[in-house]
């Protein structure tokens, strides 16, 4: 039985190595001075910093990167706030419209974003929100996924505890902020991360909702390396390499909270 332990470790490291191989290959590609070699295994020339320098001095890329950070942060914070409130209310409060909200969440979870895009686009155009940060943020200010996750998690908060707080004389808002939010922290951080990543990867909406390059985001910057007759992939991979960093920093920062007890309404009651 003890033999299993090193075996597990070897298998695990093997798996991680397999996961990392494409990333290694990516560094090789991003370091190439041109697009000649495809094997992606051995370095032929090392121009990584030249490539990155070239991207960063293009002028637009840093701006796109900053926009992505800004929009992804704003969206994920808003989503956390709205989802936390709604998810908690759905799980632990009785109010008129509760069933309706739950149905809305399930519909939103099941509706393909491509078809809502046009009506939302027209709507934002009517109120003059195209070409603005709010137009890029508002359509993602909450998420069905977030509400769903918080609700699942909030079902694990004992009702008694909320009653105790009520008997203690706390208002519902105080209970939400001082009791529910701290207890929901792992779920909220998960929502934060998931939504941040979703926005980090959002290609279509910033493209159609903003017609000012000043408002565009990273996926568009990456797409811009694709030209009419193919793609400049040594530069594009170098750019992709840069774009990994901000969410990775966020993740490593969150990890210690994040991994410390995401029960998902788990086994604890």
């Amino acid at each position: 039985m003890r033999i299993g332990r090193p075996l597990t470790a070897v298998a695990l490291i093997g798996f991680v190595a397999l996961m990392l191989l494409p990333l290694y290959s990516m560094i090789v590609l991003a370091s190439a001075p041109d697009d000649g070699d495809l094997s992606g295994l051995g370095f032929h020339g090392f121009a990584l910093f030249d490539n990155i320098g070239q991207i960063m001095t293009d002028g637009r890329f840093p701006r796109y990167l900053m926009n992505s950070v800004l929009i992804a942060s704003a969206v994920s914070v808003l989503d956390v706030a709205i989802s936390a409130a709604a998810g908690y209310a759905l799980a632990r409060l009785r109010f008129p419209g509760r069933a309706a909200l739950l149905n809305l969440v399930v519909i939103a979870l099941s509706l393909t974003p491509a078809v809502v895009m046009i009506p939302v686009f027209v709507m934002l155009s009517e109120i003059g929100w195209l070409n603005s940060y709010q137009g890029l943020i508002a359509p993602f200010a909450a998420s069905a996924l977030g509400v769903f996750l918080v609700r699942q998690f909030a079902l694990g908060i004992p009702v008694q505890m909320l009653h105790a707080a009520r008997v203690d004389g706390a208002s519902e808002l105080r209970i939400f902020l001082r009791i529910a939010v701290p207890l929901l922290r792992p779920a909220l951080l998960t929502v934060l991360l998931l939504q941040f990543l979703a926005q980090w990867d959002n290609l279509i909406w910033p493209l159609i909702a903003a017609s000012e390059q000043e408002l565009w985001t990273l996926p568009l910057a990456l797409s811009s390396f694709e030209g009419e007759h193919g793609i400049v992939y040594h530069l594009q991979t170098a750019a992709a390499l840069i774009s990994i960093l901000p969410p990775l920093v966020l993740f490593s920062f969150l990890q210690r909270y994040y991994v410390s007890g995401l029960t998902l309404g788990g086994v604890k009651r």
Partner: protein
Amino acid sequence: MTDGIRVEQVTKRYGNQVLFADIDLHVQDGEFLVIVGPSGCGKSTLMRIVAGIEPVSSGRVTVGGRDVTHAHPGDRGIGMVFQDYALYPHLSVEGNLAFGLRAHHVPKDVIRQRIADTGEALGLTDQLKKRPGQLSGGQRQRVALGRAMIREPAAYLMDEPLSNLDAALRVQMRAELIEFHRRTKGTVLYVTHDQVEAMTMGDRVAVLNEGEFAQIGTPTDIYERPATVFVATFLGSPRMNLLGATVRPFEEEVELTSGELTWRLPRKGLPADLPESVRIGFRPESVHMRVDDGTPAYPLAATVSYRENLGNESILHLRDSTGRAIVARLPPRTGPRDGEPATFQVPLADLHLFGPDGRACWHGIELAADGQPLPWSA
């Protein structure tokens, strides 16, 4: 503070289902009143109504003479101890104690003082910085109590606070709660399904069944004069023996026939309108080995099916000639062997008669109280 807690004509409905209708209860000032009943009888709901967690459908609730029927739980002047403590796991003991005071915007130095006082009163001074997860079960219980105390409520509500403790700790905490009540003279409404807690802690006990109070009275009263079959069987372990019987007037006596038993009770002292069919009740500890010492008692012939030796006593499971099960509680190492027929006796003073509606019509102890010599016939 005066007047304790009053529940007046309270009705609680969920949709079409009526949980209880026009119920009344008065917990006097300084009284420790225990509501006991089986699970699902509505006792927790009643407590939550008093606490303000559940709204009433109709009726009135007062605490300390103040109508709080529609007040927020936090404005009712009550402190509550919950079943599984319901402490805030992310706050320290201090934070838990201070939570309610902060919600009421009590000044900081007052909060500090009260935490210190409460901590001292409950022996928690060294635990104030710890989180609930780092405390023992007993300490958590004390924090929960402290959280209720610290706001100096007019009344305490305790919802099965001991039910999640292990046996030893439960005994200890029971003692602590009794001591707490003695010291503070607080009004306590206590809910439990545990008859031992009910009998040992309550100044008075209210037995709740199917949305109605079957009986409210002192523990002794309830044990000796159970108002209904339900009360009689719910309290006491093993439960009271019940034998169906038919009633026939027989000269100066009344003859009760139950299977092969024929017991004659003196008509005197019995209600005149005794129904034709009754149930005879007697507790296991009222079944004795037959001795002719002159105490008025009725014979009972039965065979021992099996026995449980509990060390300090023996529980005998008997079967009479018609196959009815009867339980007897005897001193250890007494009574016949398994399978042996024997004759036991039940003192007249320990008999209870219940009508077909489940209500008690007569308790033997009432005769005994008269001090009259009791005839006994065979």
